[in-house]
């Protein structure tokens, strides 16, 4: 992990469509051989970033380097990068063989060599025997695999995939997730993968870049993104979270007592981050980390009533309403002890299970941006 070599470097890139500022000051280094996922809700700029790397969109400002070379002025095919398009974009007038061979034909590779490589690629995606078929005669999953073979035959250093599984049904999507991940490991090619599906991102990626309205909110491993979300948005978007607005009322050593609207709670302060008294923060606790008891726990006094319970597979989710009307979710396996519906409980948690996030800071430039746009 120490000797990681950068393959794509995005330096201070901005993209503006008309009055729509779509990508803000993006700095992102993608390393050789990694599976990097860009995750975010629809419209947050993922496709735009991918298209700038692929060469279909020009950055309004900033630089993009592939293998250390600036590529803004290069045609898509002059970059060592290939794209698997969201809609697959298989050529409908060509059969599968010709679709896969297209890149090599354009490069004037010898006929026998093309035949050999196409066969190899179709083997790789398990589609040998489909050479003569046309795209319209394939299922979604098969089209998907042709699109990947058609891109990979060009031996790109980086493969860009834009929601490649978006059109598939759930079961097939799960299968293809595994298949893609295995393919990436086997070939050692860098994958830059775009999705709005957080589960997909968590299962497949080496690192996840979480995008929020054109800003990169967090770039980290799936575990870190889940365990230590950097912003309220990330905490909200990835997995389920209970997020409380709070102010810091005491700090003793690395533990702080925070005041919520409805009571007090304890939490661990993150190392290397400085906090001040009365500072506004968000405290984020995952549903499986929420604890309950009949009496008050030391340092906590948050009271609530269990409103309802939902069974999801072998997990029971209890929705607990606290004094300010906020719903707190508590989830347990069905073999664990759970509170009863209608029961009054005290809520608490292990202080190091909380993630504290500064409530201003990241959010602030969204506010400034909006204000200055409005002023124009």
């Amino acid at each position, binding site marked *: 992990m120490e000797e990681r070599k950068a393959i794509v470097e995005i330096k201070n890139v901005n993209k503006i469509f008309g009055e729509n500022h779509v990508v803000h000051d993006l700095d992102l280094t993608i390393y050789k051989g990694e599976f990097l996922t860009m995750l975010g809700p629809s419209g947050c700029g993922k496709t735009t970033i991918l298209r700038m790397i692929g060469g279909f969109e020009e950055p309004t400002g900033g630089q993009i380097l592939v293998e250390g070379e600036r590529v803004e002025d290069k045609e898509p095919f002059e970059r060592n990068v290939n794209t698997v*398009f969201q809609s697959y*974009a298989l050529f*409908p*007038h060509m059969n599968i063989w010709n679709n896969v061979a297209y890149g090599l034909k*354009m490069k004037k590779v010898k006929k026998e060599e093309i035949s050999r490589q196409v066969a190899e690629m179709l083997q790789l995606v398990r589609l040998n025997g489909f050479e003569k078929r046309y795209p319209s005669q394939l299922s979604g999953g098969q089209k998907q695999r042709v699109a990947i073979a058609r891109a990979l035959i060009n031996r790109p250093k980086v493969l860009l995939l834009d929601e490649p599984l978006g059109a598939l049904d759930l079961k097939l999507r799960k299968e293809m997730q595994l298949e893609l991940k295995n393919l990436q490991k086997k070939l050692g090619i860098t994958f830059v993968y775009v999705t709005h599906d957080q589960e997909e991102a968590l299962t497949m990626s080496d690192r996840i870049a979480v995008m929020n309205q054109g800003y990169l909110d967090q770039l980290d491993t799936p575990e870190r993104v889940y365990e230590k979300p950097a912003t309220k948005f990330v905490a909200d978007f990835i997995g389920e979270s209970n997020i409380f607005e709070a102010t810091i009322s005491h700090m003793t050593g690395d533990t702080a007592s925070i005041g919520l609207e409805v009571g007090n709670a304890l939490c661990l302060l993150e190392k290397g981050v400085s906090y001040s008294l009365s500072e506004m923060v968000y405290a984020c606790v995952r549903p499986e980390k929420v604890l309950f008891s009949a009496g008050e726990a030391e340092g906590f006094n948050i009271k609530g009533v269990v409103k309802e319970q939902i069974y999801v597979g072998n997990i029971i989710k209890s929705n607990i309403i606290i004094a300010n009307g906020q719903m707190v979710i508590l989830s347990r396996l069905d073999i664990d002890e759970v509170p009863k519906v209608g029961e009054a409980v005290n809520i608490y948690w292990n202080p190091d299970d909380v993630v504290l996030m500064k409530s201003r800071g990241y959010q602030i430039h969204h506010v400034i941006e909006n204000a200055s746009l409005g002023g124009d």
Partner: protein
Amino acid sequence: MKRSYRARNKTIPLLTTVSPVAIWLILLVAAPLLYVLFLSFLSTDGYNVVFLFTLDNYKNLFNPTYLEIYANSFLIAFFTTAICILVGYPFAYHMARAGKRKKTVMMVMLMVPFWTNSLIRLNGWKTLLGKTGFVNTFLQNLGIIREPVEILYTRGAVLLGMVYILIPYMILPLFASIDKLDHSFLEASNDLGANKVKTFLHVTLPLTFAGIFSGSIMIFIPSLGYFFVSDIMGGGKSQLIGNLIETQFKAGNNWPFGASLSMMLIFLILIMVTVYKKSGGDMEDLGVM
């Protein structure tokens, strides 16, 4: 989607939905066609149609005296179609790729002349191209030519008139097929190593072939028949199949032969459509079905 839509259509009671369309089709399409077909098997006594079955009208089609007219006519039709493709494709491409406002402006530019009577528009060309017309005067004033040159009443003028009258029929289907073309095909081609020219040849052109073909049918056949273009622009000097048909129905007083000539043109359309279908074309892409 399409299939289920069609299947559902069939289950709707025939009388409620099909009959108005059917009546319209029978009255405006089938009846006149059948009448012409019927007419083409009848005889004539030199003035009037005689109810006597004959195949002479069809044999007469191969009369050597008409071969020159056919040849001339096909030549004009071929070049009209070719020029319409060459001029129409860039225009349609540009229109399909233009922004919304520009698209509308181009569409209006295309359609406004369309709504004016074509005879008037052709006569407008006449005043431009005649011996004392604008073009000759202009060239003379510039000193490029000393004597007015013959522009009007040439094959070139007929060709110009044909292209001018017919080109919207090429641009509209072309526009439809280019506009429909998913931009990601072009990007994929570009991504895989094809520059703009190669992408055009390998992707754009084959995928818009239906538009070219549809436009060609809509131009080739009428340009065999538009006798008034030859009359106005060619001064009646160059005879087209259309002129021949017109003559049969008017001065020649030979309706049955005129009818067989018309059937020949209809037969040509059928051949062209069949060839298109055999070569793998989709009828829906033609926008006629």
